[in-house]
């Protein structure tokens, strides 16, 4: 569903881009911070953690993958319904 008013439509896409940038920025920060912390801790404790490091890899992978897919779903949902529900009026 789209609008007939081009100015309003442009405003909607601009606001949607704002939401997208916000979420992508936070996701990028999340990946960087998790990667940094995991590297620092596991590298210092590798003599002990080397035996079960895969547990950390599995859970950090799950966490980031599910959150990323979730954020993409949120973005798609906003894009799909933004004109219908007039999110940015």
């Amino acid at each position: 569903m789209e609008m007939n008013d081009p100015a309003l439509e442009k405003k909607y896409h601009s606001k949607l881009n704002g939401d997208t940038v916000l979420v992508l920025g936070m996701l990028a920060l999340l990946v960087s911070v998790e990667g940094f912390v995991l590297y620092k801790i596991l590298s210092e404790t590798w003599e002990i953690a080397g035996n079960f490091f895969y547990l950390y890899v599995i859970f950090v992978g799950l966490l980031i993958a599910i959150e990323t897919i979730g954020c993409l779903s949120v973005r798609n949902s906003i894009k799909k319904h933004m004109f219908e529900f007039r999110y940015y009026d």
Partner: protein
Amino acid sequence: MSENHESGSLVKTLRPFHVWALGVGIVLVGEYMGWNFTVAKGGVLGSLLAMLVAGTMYVMISLCASELGSSTKLAGGPYDWARLFIGPGAAASVGLAVYMEYIALEAADAIVVAFIAQSIFPELQVFPVTLLVIALLTFINYRGVVAALTLNFVLTMIAFIAIVVFFFATAFGAVDIHPEYLFQGALPNGMIGLFAALQFGPWFYLGIEGAAMCAEECKHPARAVPLGQQAGMITLLIGAAMTLYLCAVLIPADMLGVSVYPLFEAAQNSGMFIFIALLGLGTFLTCVASANGCVCDSSRSWFALSRDNYVSSWFSAVHPRYNTPYRAVIFTVPVAIGFAFSGFLDQVITFSIISGLLCYVLIPFSLIRFRNLFPETTSKVRPFVGPLQPYIAYFAIAIAITIFSTLFWGYKYNLIFAFVFYGIAYFYFSHRHKNSNIENNWTEMGWPAPKGSENERIGKEVMGVGDE
């Protein structure tokens, strides 16, 4: 829903940043204190694993809550989801669990604020300051949800920025760290410590599901709830990783495991005044923000229970001027004071965690039932469709039960008491409201009749599509 209440409707003004402020505001206190018991149980490696396992569970729970909250748009949150999709017994248990979880946290937060105030001004007494904090936050919530959550946004943002600034200063070498602390306190209790540490993993994120409880007061719940909740979840994941790293390289593990204010202590160990002041302020503000969010969420849960006659419908009145559930808000005062001065606060907090874990089993289960009863994806029924469902719902339940089981070490009696309490609530309210599922008025919500019901065909015909 009962017609036997005098309420109008709650005002719909909240935006995504309010949802973020409600969720993160309640939870961020758990990153300033409490999470470090994971270190006492499992060392730095146990704490890291607990943070990741609990984080994975909460990501999945928050996706379930986003879908359920944006679909139902009701103030009761987990209570209303259980009422609509499971049954009255589960609904009452979850409603009471949410109420207990948040009101116990409010009491704990108010006491910590009073202790911090007393440490700054020794002439102050803890008892009157605790009363003052509870009364002040109740008054703010009485006056209006927008003012309460805007206050939360400011307090929470300052507390979060304090962690971020401290982390980047440390990561870029402005603070002298002790990497040897990581190895020295890596795994003091062996492999069993990895498992034992899981019981305190929820501290990093406990209460984020409450963000969806303001759905009824959102201007556009289909956008505000999923966006605010996911932004909140990412904020907490970032904050948790930063907090763990900062404390682990600045405080020896044996001291970190028993610290009362670990982030503040890490700042003290850095020896830099700016961080001591910043993290001290952050500790204070995050306690106030958490207590404030808890008043908001516990009152909404009580309001929803009252609206459906699970408790007296007298509490379901909405203020004619401020559009807040003012009686439910005021009723938080005596209960919070009772919790605060029971003398068993550590037990009360553990009861709060157990109540939260009960919700983490029943929220994904509500989503599974919701998907089964209403498989169609229309704008009216399901404006936000969560990904990877129902698989992540089953996975979240499995992790929640695993964490539940670890509470048996050290909190056996709390666990048994909670099972008895919620078991009695389940059977009592199941019996008292055995016909309430029939009373769910799906058409009034603009939904079709649920799959498999007698009225499914009729429901499809009357269902409208389109508006929110």
